[in-house]
Every structure is written in C-alpha cells, then in structure tokens.
C-alpha cells in the first residue's frame, strides 16, 4: 500500500536529458498499522552510457528502487527522471528495457520470437520511434549471445544459462537507451553465473547502453560496473558510491588482478560498515 509523501513538495527535479536523475526518492510500504520504510532519501545520478550496479544485501531496497525506475512501482516521494522523461513516459515510448530475475520467456514461442518480443507489443511506440532508441536485429543479438543455432528451439529445450542469455538478448533487441536488470543471474549456479557475467560484459561493451544492474555479488558488481552503489537495509539507503576505475574493455585476467580484488574487498567492507552502523 502506498503512503502519501510525508515531506512537503520536494525540490524541483534536475531533469537532464543526458542522464538518469533520482532525487530524494523514498518509498514506504504500509502493512496494517505499521509503515515500513523501504527506501529513504535516495539521490543518484547515472551518466549516459554508464554501467551502474546497485549492490547490497536482501531487504536493502535495491530491487524496489529498480522497479520504481522501471515504472512498475510508484515512489512515495521524490523525483525520477530518465533522460528527461518520467518512468511512465519512458515506458510508453519503450525507452526502458526490463530484464527480470527469471528469464520469463514465453514457452510457446521459439527463442527467436521470444527475443523479438518487443517488436510485437506496444507497436504505437515504434511508429514514432524516438532517436535515442535503436531496435536491434534479433538474429544478430542471438549470435552475440552465442545462441544463433538455437533460434528455432523452444525455451524448454535450453539450459538455465542459455535461457537467461536469451532473456538478456530480448532486452538488447528492444534497443532502449536504458536497461534495468534485476538480479538476472541469481538463480544460476556459480560457474554459469561467471560465464554469463563475461557474456554480458562483452555484449554491453559493444552496445554501450546505460545500465542499472542489481546484484548481491561483489565480484559481479566490480566486473561489470563503472560505478557501484552500496546500499544497506532498514531503512534502505545509499551507504557509499564507489567508482570502479578498471580499464575497458576488461580482459579475462582482470578478475585475478590486485586492483580487482581490492575493489571487491572495498565493497564488502562498505557493506559491513553499513551493517554495523545500522545495528
């Protein structure tokens, strides 16, 4: 249940057409008589073309924040601007690509048709295609994801990792300037997860979309991101924002480098500090 904003009208939003701007976003859930603060005072700017990860333990509100950006949930207060549009406007123009936790492929469609799903729904948005969205060819993206020869298979014939790759491909085919990924690898085993991380890194470095990625894996966060937002629970808030200044494109050896490991440690330390401060 949504709760009306408690603080008065927030400051006018900084609406930049070249960035994602969150300003004093908060979200309360009401359960019976008590109000749960899921997010308090989240302010964050994501520059165009950046890969930003929301990192934190479960209950820190990272998924809720992502859902607010996607327009799947309404904030209780504060401003969200996606390249100058509200989340509702952005979704009306299909300017946001949502990659959910499970692959959520449609079992009755072939892999190719699943990946091309965005071409069949809300076609009005395609008739007035905004310049910032560049739909991609389904077959090409499938090839980038290493799924070219499975295009005519049904999802049930794929392994879990392949299904998740197909779900990522579906996200890229839409060609939206902003991609939102809600723990897309969390249901996979560690090895599949690693290999998928590299796949995503590779494809992203070619497409260079603005990405907001949610994870609770520190390694994944460092590998993929330009910037990691460390969040802590009760109430959900931003504990720290860490720049990941590793070179791009990132070679496979990077995961064993001292700089990489130092950043992973740094993330874990920040998480612990947040936990101790909250306790």
């Amino acid at each position: 249940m949504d709760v009306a904003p408690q603080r008065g009208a927030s400051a006018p939003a900084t609406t930049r057409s070249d960035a994602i701007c969150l300003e004093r976003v908060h979200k309360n859930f009401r359960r019976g008589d008590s109000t749960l603060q899921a997010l308090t005072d989240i302010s964050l700017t994501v520059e165009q073309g950046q890969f930003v990860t929301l990192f934190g333990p479960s209950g820190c509100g990272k998924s809720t924040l992502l859902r607010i950006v996607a327009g799947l949930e309404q904030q209780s207060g504060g401003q969200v601007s996606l390249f100058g549009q509200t989340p509702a406007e952005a979704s009306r123009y299909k300017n946001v690509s949502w990659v959910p936790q499970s692959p959520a492929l449609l079992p009755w469609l072939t892999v190719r048709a699943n990946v091309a799903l965005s071409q069949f729904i809300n076609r009005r948005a395609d008739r007035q295609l905004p310049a910032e969205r560049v739909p991609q060819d389904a077959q090409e993206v499938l090839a980038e994801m290493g799924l070219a020869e499975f295009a005519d298979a049904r999802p049930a014939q794929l392994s879990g990792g392949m299904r998740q790759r197909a779900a990522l491909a579906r996200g890229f085919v839409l060609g939206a300037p902003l991609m939102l990924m809600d723990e897309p690898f969390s249901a996979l085993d560690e090895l599949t997860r690693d290999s998928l991380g590299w796949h995503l890194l590779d494809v992203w470095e070619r497409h260079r979309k603005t990405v907001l990625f949610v994870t609770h894996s520190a390694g994944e966060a460092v590998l993929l991101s330009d910037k990691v937002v460390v969040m802590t629970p009760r109430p959900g808030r931003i504990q720290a924002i860490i720049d990941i200044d590793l070179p791009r494109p990132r070679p496979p050896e990077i995961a064993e480098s001292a700089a990489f490991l130092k950043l992973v440690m740094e993330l874990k330390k920040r998480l612990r500090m947040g936990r101790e401060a909250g306790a």
Partner: protein
Amino acid sequence: MTAAALWRGSGRLWAPALTFLLLGVAWQLVAAHQKSILPPLDEVAGDLWSRPQFYLANLWVTVYAALIGFLFGSALALLLAITVIHFSFLRAAVVPVALLLNVTPIVAISPALIVAFGFNAIPHVIVAAVAAFFPMLINAMSGLQAVDPQALEVFQSMAASRRDIFIRLRLPSSLPYLFSGAKLAITAAMVGAIVSEFMGTSHGIGATIVMATAYLNLKQMWAAIFVSAISTLIMVGLVGLTEKATIRW
C-alpha cells in the same frame, strides 16, 4: 532390449487389459448366478451387434445435444471468464450465480425446461450447456490468471496494451487450463444430455436406458450404458488430441 525391459515397457498395455479381463470374469460370474442383477456380456454384445442402427441413431441424438450444449456452455463460460478477469468488480456479481447454478441438481431443472420449451431438443441442449458451463468457467478463470508475473512485468515495462497482454500472454498461458476445462465440460455435457433424456423424450441414449428399465430389458440397458461411456471416452480423447496438436511446448 532385455526381456525385463520389454516386460516393463508393455506394462502400459497389459496392466489395464488384465484389469478389464478380471472385471469381465467377475461380471460373468455374477451374471451366471443372478441374471436379474447383470446380463451376461455376450448377450449385451449380441444385442449391440444385432441392431447397431438402433443404438447409433439414439447415440447420435444424445451426442448432438451434448455437443451443441458443450459449444454454447463453454463459449459462454469463456466469454464470462474473459470479462470477469478484466473487470474484477464483476467477479463478485457473477461467481455466486455460477456457484448456485453448479449446486443445483440438473435433474431438477430438466422438467422445468420441458415445461418451458416443449418436447423437443432444446431442453436437453440447455441441460448439457448448463452442465458444461461451470467446469469451463472455473478452469478459464484460473487459466487466464495463471500468468508468469515476471513475464507480465516485461510486458508492462513496455506499456503493453490490455489487448497485447491478453492475446500474447494470457490466452496462450491459459491453453492447458482451457483444455482441461474442455475435457471436464464435454464429459459433463454428455452426462447432462443423458440425464435430461430420462424424461420428456423417447429418443436418445437416456431414453433408451429408461425404456429398458420399464421392460426389464437388461441387455439393452447395459448396451446403452456401454455405448454412452465409450462415446464419451472418444470425445474426451478427441479433445486430448486437439490439445496435443495445439500445445507443442
């Protein structure tokens, strides 16, 4: 293939065959000692064999009423289910009526329908339709709501219209439920048609059974019962085949 594997593999065939054989033997034993309880199976088969056109003509009357009833009843149920899931306030208005209809004994409304519509096929079609309606409604309502919530969010994130969501997500997701509903509905429609023929008509399998009772003609009674069971089984099988041809994932 080893002998053991062959044995196991053929189990799907011989296990039910053995059950039927045992049932048949038990039947014949009862029939041999108590002719007023069960007629010998060979006599039942003989009666079927000697006048197939009598049984087929009556079967067709029943199957016709059941099929028309099934089509109307399940189409109405499907339309209602689609309406109810899109306008949730209607659910409270509709579902109690459907429940009431479901607990009303079909035999009880049959005479009322004969009074209303006369001695023709209409009362029997209506009873079959009423019988088919409820299982289809319940299955269609659950099926149309059995949507993967994460897939729904993918649709919503692109501002999909209700039409998009219905045609590309809800309807295909619901197909397994719709076919289960159709299997139940066609069975119910057959039962409804037969029971409604117990009165107000001299045609159809139901009437055949009632008349056999009046003349204590056990051969005819059981032949009619077998004919109705087997034909219902065939219709359920046809729905199953359609399901296999439609749902290939």
